[in-house]
């Protein structure tokens, strides 16, 4: 799997799904949700996020709702990878299921400042602050999870069985 190098958006603990995708927008298309993603904690996110950026966060990232729009909108806005000290479990599963790389890495939030550059090897579960140099080790994903991410999501595995939509 490719390695990711990107600019860091540093977020805190307990960053929940409703902050990523407000409930009032659950009936809206992803483009509209993107207008408001993270706006209550980082109003500049929409205007300044660039393809390839990474999110580095504290504990319990993506806690709360099962709304898949939360990982979807981050992926659609160009976030290449989310590294957090821990994840809400549904967000974690859904991110893998849609092919958004995620990595749990203890104490990672303290190793980065906003705007730093992170280098991430998802397969080896390693995270490096390019400026600081120290390599941090996260929790390795299972081979099945890595395969789902590499293939671009769990639906691709289904399509392989069926030959896709007729």
């Amino acid at each position, binding site marked *: 799997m490719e390695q990711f190098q990107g600019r860091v958006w540093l977020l805190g603990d*307990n960053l929940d799904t409703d*902050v990523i995708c407000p409930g009032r927008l659950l009936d809206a298309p992803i483009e509209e949700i993107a207008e408001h993603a993270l706006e209550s904690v980082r109003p500049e996110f929409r205007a300044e996020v660039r393809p390839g950026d990474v999110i580095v966060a504290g504990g319990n990232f993506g*806690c709360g709702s099962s709304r898949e729009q939360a990982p979807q909108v981050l992926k659609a806005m160009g976030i290449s990878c989310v590294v957090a000290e821990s994840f809400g479990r*549904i967000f974690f599963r*859904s991110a893998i299921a849609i092919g958004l790389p995620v990595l749990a890495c203890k104490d990672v939030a303290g190793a980065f400042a906003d705007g730093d550059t992170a280098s991430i090897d998802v397969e080896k579960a390693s995270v490096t602050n390019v400026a600081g140099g120290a390599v941090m080790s996260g929790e390795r994903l299972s081979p099945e999870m890595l395969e789902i991410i590499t293939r671009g999501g769990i*639906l691709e595995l289904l*399509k392989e069985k069926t030959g896709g939509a007729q």
Partner: protein
Amino acid sequence: MAMTSAERILARASGRDTVAPGDYVTADIDKAMCNEGFAAVAMNLGAAGISKVFDPERVVVIMDHYVPPPTERAAMIQKIVRGAVSAFGLPNFYDGRYGVAHQVMMERGHALPGELIVGTDSHTCTYGALGAASCGIGFTEMAYALATGRLWFRVPETVRFHLEGDLPPLVMSKDVILKIAGDHGAEVAQYRAAEFSGTGAGAMTMASRMTISNMSMEIGAKFCFFETDARAEEFLHGLPVGGYDPLVFDESARVFAEYSLDLTSLEPQVALPHTVENVQPVSSLERTPIHQALLGSCTNGRLEDLQAAALLLKGRSVHPDVRMLVYPASWAVYRLAIDDGTLADLVDAGAIVMNPGCGPCFGSHGGLLAQDEACVASTNRNFIGRMGSDKAGVYLASPATVAASAAAGYIADPRDL
């Protein structure tokens, strides 16, 4: 070998004799619940060329989030769901006049002890109240589960909570789970299963257990379990259900951590904005005026919850500065609360009785907050912007505390009313 509840159910569902925490298994799904998220699930199935689900009898679709549709877009989502239910030939379809999915799953006998159940809603863990292993998943994984009947799981560690003794008057099971979140944090059961045992758990009604299993999501739990004891058997008796395996805890199974809570000395608790772990006793809260009081939801909208509130509000009035909303968990609860006069008492006190549904609890409709407003709610989340403005505050509390606060105009201890 001694196994926890999660281990036993995942071993059975994956055809193994034993499993251990950290193992990855592919397990057979016993039931799959979809709310309006079925529109997105069906789209995913279509994109993958899937025209049949693994077993239509095992799929339950319940519309609850947009009842009735607050926007044209929400109406369209429901229309898509109806079309997809018809196209896939799903017999277990509840179209908007039954209640919140988790309550309907329980009261219609779709969730049974020992089953492995997934749902497109995070509070699917509610069915652990009668011993099911149930959890929320996203739309894409649900499409995979419906197509194949299977899904991967990592076998979780288990955290055991011993609840000892009886709750004092006007202290409810909501206070128990808020106290646990406050004392041990919102990640005490992260990626883990939670087992609730002890005399205090055994003494709880099914409704009270459902409040705790519903809220176990807010302490990170993947599954939540209560034993299938006589009370659970009584609940299941009379439902149109066949055989099932009662869940009995194996106390000798190795668990990750154990905690004890003495219920006899518990006070009413409140979770302040904006995390569920930001908890303190109501008695120590500084005077906090409220503008809305929300009673009900899948967390605390069962008959005993509405009755507890009605008992406090009978002969009193909702404070003139407060709008009080009542959301029964289901049409069945709604009807019972009409029959026994509970809703009459609440209406006489000045409450607005809404139809069962999810509206304000996820910030969609039917009781949202303006900036600088505060709501005391018997719901399950107080995230930023959860119920309207991201500059409003949601305080989570029990139905008794919600009712006492509605009368007082500020967050009030029901024991002082």
